[in-house]
């Protein structure tokens, strides 16, 4: 199948196509693509909360949720009007150690919306009358998580694996609700003053980019943003806990979410990462991986099962988890069969054919994932956040292709330990329901 004539020339590498410069403290990365009139951006900076003090994360959530409630001389409606009149999108979120921001606008509106982005980050009003409403919204969000079997099972697993000061730890939802009520507007403003600054600030802009205009907007609005003085305080490694089972009983939830997982002594930049990633992918990365093929396709026990390397970064360790949903009557059997498949996989490893198939899946999916302006911007930003050069993205498919079966099977044997698996369940189950299945 031929692609269009304009595509037949060799696609230049990211390193060749990307324009990159430092503007004040802000690293600006731009990538023009042939799309017309649409520009997307993703950015982040280090907020460096003290992970040992869980109030700080809640304060970070509160600040983020109040960024769109007025900034500079603009009240909340004036801020919204700038965006809504243009159909532009702008979002802020708290990603534990960082604050993320992203947006999308028509080409003619980009500079104004980027200016608004900076204003909201640097000079939010954080008005006292908005605090109660912000608390209600966060409270509602926490309560929705309490109703979610998926959120409850994942939270329980993380509490079994990590200590409270690890970035991947998730606090009990009830505790967060209580803490939230104690926070004052002074606390919120103090957190903003101490943690919002241009530390490791990166902005990636993709699409129909007018580079001069974006340069100028970043010069005008981000270049003078001072850094804050907070330094990151967090545990880099999980805590040692004996494997066990946690159950979160939620009446009326006949689908039970189950997580099996353990800590991983591996970082994103370790040589073993890509072999472990490929091994995990062969086990539970997609529909044609082992777990979906056996537990769903052959046995019909679940609608969804998958495995992932979760919360792994270059800064701290993460964990390995298998997530499966099971109707109440299949919980016992589902967990037993899942553990059996994991053991079989770890003992036998992957076959050469299986690995080759997963390699082409991963490299093909990488290409597909870069087909939107958001996909490009997010991938470029994540790459920078992990501390990699732009060229890493060009090299990634070759790095995947060069991994051998022995490397993958060595990584599987070293990294994945069935006897170390914790099991957590959330739904209409009682404690002890899967005792016998616990590895």
């Amino acid at each position, binding site marked *: *199948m031929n*692609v*269009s004539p304009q*595509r037949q020339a060799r*696609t230049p590498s990211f390193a060749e196509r990307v324009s990159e410069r430092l503007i004040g403290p802000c690293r600006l990365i731009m990538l023009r*693509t042939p*799309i*017309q*009139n*649409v520009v997307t951006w993703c950015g982040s900076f280090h907020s460096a909360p003290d992970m040992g003090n869980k109030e700080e994360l809640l304060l970070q959530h509160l600040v983020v949720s109040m960024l769109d409630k007025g900034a500079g001389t603009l009240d*909340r*409606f004036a*801020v*919204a*009007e700038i*965006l*809504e*009149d*243009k*159909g*532009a999108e702008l979002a802020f979120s708290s990603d534990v150690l960082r604050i993320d921001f992203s947006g*999308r606008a*028509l080409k003619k509106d980009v500079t104004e919306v980027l200016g608004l982005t900076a204003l909201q980050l640097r000079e939010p009003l954080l008005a006292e009358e908005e605090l109660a*409403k912000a608390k*209600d*919204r966060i*409270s*509602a969000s926490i309560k*929705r998580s309490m*109703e979610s079997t998926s959120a409850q099972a994942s939270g329980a697993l993380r509490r079994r694996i990590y200590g409270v000061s690890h970035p991947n730890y998730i606090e009990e939802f009830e505790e967060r609700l209580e803490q939230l009520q104690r926070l004052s507007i002074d606390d919120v403003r103090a957190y903003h003053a101490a943690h919002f600054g241009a530390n490791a600030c990166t902005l990636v802009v993709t*699409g129909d980019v007018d580079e001069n205009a974006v340069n100028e907007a970043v010069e005008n609005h981000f270049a003078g943003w001072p850094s804050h003085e907070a330094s990151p305080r967090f545990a880099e490694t999980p805590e040692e806990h004996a494997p066990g089972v946690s159950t979160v009983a*939620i*009446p*009326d*939830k*006949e*689908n039970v979410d189950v997580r099996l997982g353990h800590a991983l002594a591996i970082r994103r930049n370790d040589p073993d990462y890509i072999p472990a990633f490929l091994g995990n992918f062969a086990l539970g990365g*997609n*529909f*044609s991986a082992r777990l979906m093929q056996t537990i*769903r*396709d*052959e046995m*019909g*026990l*679940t*609608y969804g099962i998958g495995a992932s390397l979760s919360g792994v970064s270059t800064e701290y360790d993460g964990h390995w988890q298998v997530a499966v*949903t*099971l*109707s*109440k009557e299949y919980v016992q059997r589902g967990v037993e069969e899942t553990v059996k498949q994991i053991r079989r996989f770890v003992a036998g490893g992957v076959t050469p054919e299986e690995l080759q*198939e997963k390699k082409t899946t991963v490299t*093909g*999916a*990488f*290409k*597909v994932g870069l*087909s*939107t302006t958001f996909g490009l911007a997010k991938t470029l930003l994540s790459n920078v956040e992990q501390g990699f050069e732009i060229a890493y993205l060009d090299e990634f498919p070759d790095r995947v292709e060069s991994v051998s079966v022995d490397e993958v099977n060595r990584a599987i044997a070293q990294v994945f330990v069935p006897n170390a698996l914790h099991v957590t369940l959330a*739904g209409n189950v009682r404690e002890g329901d899967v005792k016998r299945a616990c590895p």
Partner: protein
Amino acid sequence: MDIPKGFSFEEASGGVEAYRLEDNGLQALLLQDATAPVATFMITYRVGSRHEPEGLTGACHFLEHLMFKGSARFNKQAGTSVFNVLQRVGARVNATTWLDRTNYYEMLPGEYLPLAVEIEADRMRGALLQDEDMERERTVILNELDRGENDSIRKLFHAVWAAAFTVHPYHHPVIGWRGDVERLTPDGLRHFYDTYYRPDNATVSIIGDFDKTEALGLVHRHFGQIASPEEALPTMHVCEPAQEEERRVVVRQAGWQGAVMVAWKSPRGLEADTDALDMLSAILSAGKNGRLYRRLTDTGLTTSAWGGISRFCDPGLAYVFARPAPDKTHEEVEAAIHATIDEIKENGITEEELQRARNQRKAQAAFSRDGSFSAAAELNEAIAAGDWKIYTTMQDRIHQVTGKHIQRVARKYFVENACTTGYYIPGYPD
């Protein structure tokens, strides 16, 4: 480009070209987009839960699952299962069933487009639909159903639609009633497959980076040999009787965060009144200058509130959904929703609100061309509603909507006897 042999050109609109395979009536839509070396292939069958009679609810969705269990040339026994073959090349592959349609799609590197065309053609008439696969898949679907039942808001939506429609199949959830899913038979599914999976009931869409002549050649090569049955497609004539009084439903389930949904009957997706209701929905719920935010959320009555409109083959629902703030009651929220609507019925909307909604739609139209899948998803719903050109002409349609039209549809459709109200009242587990 010369029109390839076997095709007739139908029309072009907004960059999309429509062709039809002369021998069997299959429609093909082409939308070129060379921004990335990726293409999306999608086949939309004009069959959904709307076509399911009582006792066969969930059949379309069940069939969608079985379509991945193998076809004549692509099956697990031969080592060529659909997922294996497509995911091997990095494709995002899946299918969805909805009220008026079922679609199967592959988003993949452009050079593998032929593979997607070949697979979809093979399973259009060659699906194996084996009894043993059906039994294994039944428990998978029942788990999917349980997952959905875990979600109180999904249950609320189902309850409101079920109460609002008493005769029309929009009454039942797409996944089906549990009792039906437990009892569906292979013969029932096969009958559904034989009745609706045919070239003249399908549209293939190719979006992304491809050569047009080659793409049509592929469609001809793989789909051209499939004959459409001589029997005419069954027509659906179920008409929901006029609602004569307000209806109310309550969903109770363990949880902590309640919800209110107020819904009114709305017209067919292709009608101009639906465009006006669509714009009204945007004015109600678009951001902080939306009416609902200002009246409900900014005042601390709700933590979120938004409106929506269905654009289906048959009349559907326009609705407002809201989450009460912690110390507020469902009744207070419901009253505020009605007050917001009544204000528009009485005083209309401002020119500024209308212009803002138009600008937002203009930006969304540009955003919808960002990536081949985004365009495919919108085309899919337009095909299902009855005219793919809704996707390409939406800007013109909404520009014809005036403030007076919006006030008129608010008065016409948002009336008490066409209203169905649903509460989700959470119980508090210990």
